[in-house]
């Protein structure tokens, strides 16, 4: 598999710069890329299989023979990554397979289970209320991303982890760099290290303080002190949660608001039927699918996906966003239908790596949107969907800003 052999293949991720924030591909790209498993070329020059159908994406992501470990030779990287130090890799369970992965993930499953998220709903509500007050104080007009969409999940994840929100500029800037495909390997490495150093200091400080009621304190007390988890592993886990906790939900709140504002009456309908907000959230997740460019995997065994033979050693990109618009699963998939039952969507991924924070993300999105609908009944976007500034090179798609008025 050489880079030269791949030059005639279509490029993935495909450029979507002109499509606005809601269309995933243009007609021509759709024709070439969507449907049966096809061969594409990644920006690194490496070829990979593109998997876009709902059933095929599920099959890949649930298959134990497809690895998520990007250190393996042949892994389909969409950007060059710097060589990782041994400690830099520790704890990054989303890039691990099998037992190694489940040992670490299972230390977190109880933290994020539905019951616990229900328990912290008052905290989410309080955070949303605070951000709504900030929004009211900032405008009209105001930037909804900066004043509302980003602070809400950021404050909540900081609180859960036990990371001081006062440092948010420091880790928000670095979270963004890590997710941006244009970031050079050197800057990536430097920012990842700075985040690790920051969290390392925090974890070490918790060792002397045994009373804390936050996730880092609990893991120090129950796992590090008992020898089940190393400090480096805990740092890596906290890093993942901090980055993921920031960007995904923040971008969902920003994009969701823009989408809701496209048609008058959508927020009013939400205000009138708050009990339907949970269905609305599922459709927003399906339609917006912020992890747009897909999840990369490396085949460790020969497999057949969607009728295509895939050989051990070949890379696969499972595209959640396109699977979420599979017409075989969703009627009129290109239409946003606020109250369709979209529960089969794959916005959180699938398989053993499926987003561990999904109950939290759902609750944040629901409470944030209900809060906005309630507090700002006359909310409007000051720009059309074609004018908004989007994050096109990020692993997590979203808006850079959303000017709103009321």
């Amino acid at each position, binding site marked *: 598999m050489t880079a030269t052999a791949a030059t005639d293949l279509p490029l993935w991720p495909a450029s979507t710069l002109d499509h606005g924030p809601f269309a995933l591909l243009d007609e021509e790209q759709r024709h070439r890329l969507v449907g049966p498993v096809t061969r594409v070329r990644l920006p690194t020059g490496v070829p990979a299989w593109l998997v876009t159908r709902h059933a095929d994406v599920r099959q890949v992501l*649930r298959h134990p023979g497809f690895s998520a470990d990007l250190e393996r030779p042949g892994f389909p990287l969409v950007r060059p990554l710097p060589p990782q130090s041994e400690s830099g890799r520790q704890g990054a369970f989303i890039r691990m397979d099998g037992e190694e992965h*489940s040992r670490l*993930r299972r230390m977190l*499953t109880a933290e994020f*289970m539905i019951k616990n998220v229900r328990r912290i709903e008052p905290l989410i509500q309080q955070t949303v209320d605070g951000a709504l007050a900030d929004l009211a104080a900032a405008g009209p007009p105001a930037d909804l991303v900066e004043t509302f969409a980003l602070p809400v999940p950021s404050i909540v994840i900081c609180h859960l982890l036990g990371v001081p929100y006062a440092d948010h500029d420091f880790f928000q800037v670095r979270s963004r760099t890590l997710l941006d495909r244009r970031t050079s390997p050197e800057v990536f490495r430097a920012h990842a290290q700075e985040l690790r150093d920051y969290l390392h200091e925090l974890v070490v400080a918790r060792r002397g303080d045994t009373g804390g009621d936050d996730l880092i304190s609990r893991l120090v007390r129950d796992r590090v002190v008992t020898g089940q988890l190393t400090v480096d592993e805990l740092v890596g886990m906290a890093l993942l949660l901090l980055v993921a906790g920031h960007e995904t939900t923040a971008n969902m709140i920003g994009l969701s608001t823009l989408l809701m504002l496209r048609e008058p009456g959508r927020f009013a309908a939400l205000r009138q039927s708050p009990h339907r907000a949970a269905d609305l959230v599922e459709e927003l997740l399906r339609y917006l699918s912020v992890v747009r460019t897909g999840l990369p995997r490396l085949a460790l065994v020969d497999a057949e996906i969607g009728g295509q033979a895939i050989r051990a050693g070949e890379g696969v990109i499972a595209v959640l966003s396109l699977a979420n618009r599979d017409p075989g699963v969703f009627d009129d998939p290109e239409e946003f239908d606020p109250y369709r039952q979209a529960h089969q969507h794959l916005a959180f991924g699938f398989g*053993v790596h*499926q987003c561990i924070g*999904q*109950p939290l993300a759902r609750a944040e999105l629901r409470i944030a949107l209900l809060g906005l609908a309630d507090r700002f009944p006359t909310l409007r976007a000051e720009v059309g969907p074609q004018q908004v500034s989007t994050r096109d090179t990020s692993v997590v798609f979203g808006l850079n800003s959303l000017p709103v008025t009321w």
Partner: protein
Amino acid sequence: MSQVGVVRVAVDRGSCCGSGNCVVAAPEVFDQDDTDGLVLLLRPDPPPEAADRVRRAVETCPAGAIHLTSTTGP
């Protein structure tokens, strides 16, 4: 499309990844263990009216940890 039938359910905690999708789909049948967040089967013999929700749990379980051990009826 409602499928009526009797289902018996089994779960495999060894493969569960604690996503909680089963609890969302059928809260009367599944719960998550307080200590580890992994699936707890509340009712291996769910009532017929829960059958569709149980099937949805099987379908949305990301880890393939829920199995129907027998089904009867159309």
